């Protein structure tokens, strides 16, 4: 059975088209951890995920992944000309049909194995994309807003499905989202990315499965939202040292805290 892989970034910077998107960030995902990264659009969170997936190159710093990451995109990105079963086996030289059917039944779609993706609903397509990821026995799953395009009810069941499979299979997961509640519901830690740096990290110790709309989830979500909006009021200025040391209190025991705490300026 697959286990989680470790992922670590140190002083990772990414510039695209001359613009600095990620500024010397540090991050550690321990084996089996579920990390959520939230941020506004343009904060660099999608770029971070693309770099981890090997789709963009980083300009500076170090990136270590314990196992090849598997990505789930916002769109299912299924091949319309291949059956569900063939889509699930994509990238494997000799896909094991029994394993394929097993992962399809894990997402509840074993009976649609022979159908074309065009005949499935949006939620079902995203579940096939999840099955395709599971087919590769991922040790590190990167989730790029995979629930963003789903309707509210489908989103809830998809989130539960991913959480259930994560706790069953033990892979490490990195979720990028703009939905703060989703980040809190699923993450062991919630990190806030703003202007290419982490400005907050919240550890979420609530027992799973967490209760949507509960007071505890709401309190943490509010703290995360505040951090996002506070940074907005400061405009494009780098975070003040005071804010940095304040944030540092949250995570004094952790080695994955952003480099601005070390007093660097861009």
């Amino acid at each position, binding site marked *: 059975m697959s286990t989680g892989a470790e992922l670590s970034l140190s002083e990772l910077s990414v510039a695209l088209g001359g613009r600095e998107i990620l500024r010397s960030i540090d991050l550690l995902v321990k084996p089996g951890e579920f990390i959520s990264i939230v941020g506004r659009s343009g904060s660099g969170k999608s770029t971070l995920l693309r770099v981890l997936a090997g789709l963009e190159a980083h300009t500076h710093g170090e990136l270590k992944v314990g196992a090849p990451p598997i990505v789930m995109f916002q769109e299912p990105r299924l091949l319309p000309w291949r059956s569900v079963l063939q889509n699930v086996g994509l990238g494997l030289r000799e896909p094991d049909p029994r394993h394929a059917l097993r992962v399809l039944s894990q997402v509840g779609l074993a009976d649609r194995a022979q159908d*074309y993706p065009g005949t499935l609903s949006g939620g079902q397509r995203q579940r096939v994309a999840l099955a395709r990821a599971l087919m590769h026995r991922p040790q590190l799953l990167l989730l790029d807003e995979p629930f963003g395009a789903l309707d509210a009810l489908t989103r809830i069941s998809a989130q539960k499905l991913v959480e259930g499979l994560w706790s069953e299979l033990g892979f490490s997961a990195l979720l990028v989202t703009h939905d703060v509640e989703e980040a809190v519901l699923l993450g062991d830690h919630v990190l806030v990315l703003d202007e290419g740096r982490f400005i907050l990290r919240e550890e979420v110790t609530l027992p799973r499965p967490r209760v949507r709309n509960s007071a505890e989830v709401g309190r943490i979500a509010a703290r995360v939202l505040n951090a996002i909006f506070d940074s907005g009021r400061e405009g494009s200025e780098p975070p003040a040292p005071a804010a940095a040391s304040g944030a540092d209190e949250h995570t004094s025991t952790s080695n994955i805290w952003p480099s601005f705490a070390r007093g660097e300026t861009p």
Partner: protein
Amino acid sequence: MTAAMLRRRLAPWIAPFVLLAAWELASRSGLLPKNLLPSPYEVAQAFVRAVSRGDLLVHLGVSALRAGVGMLVGAGIGLALGLLTGLSRKLQLVLDTPLQMLRAVPAIALVPLVILWFGLGEAAKLFIVSMTVMFPVYLNTFHGVRSVDPQLIEMARTYHVSGFAMYREVILPGALPSILVGLRFALGMSWLVLIVAETIGAEQGLGYVAMNAREFMQMDTLVLTIVLWAILGKLADVLAGSVEQRLLPWQPRSQRMAAE
């Protein structure tokens, strides 16, 4: 077969039959002088004569062979060129302009040169047909390769699909609907261009029959060739449609119609 299905099958043939009936009536009443246009009955007689002489099938067979071989060669070259320019910006830069210029040249203008190069044999006719059908296949293949969803290519890359597997799994199937549209055009044109190709020293073929009939003012035979062209064009289209249906089973029929 339900009544609705029957209506759908028959509906496309209403206009041709009404036209045919009106034509026959106009000929019989003398409204349409026979020296201007023979009646459908006379055309049918010409058809029966040609079939009973046994040469019509030979002419059609020879033409089909020329169209078919020309199609294979031309579509093959067009497909290869389209894939090359579609996949490589450099090759597109080098090849696209001359190909577009060549496309603008009417086949009939090339006939004297083609005779000079290839003589009066089959090679000259194949050259004309191949050159004509090459362009729609080239253009649509190029367009098809370029319009493959980049998100799918990116996704496949994250699953370590690369090289030939990328073509087989993503690029070719993604370009296929467009390639088939090109083939459909080409198939129609392969028959049309025979009227040009079979003016070159031909003694058989539909183009030869039409030219001969024109020389000797055999109006009934001439109109017969026109009707045959119309029917063959429809047949080519039906053939292309069934190929499409077999190769694109994943595409809903409504979507396929919209793409054309």
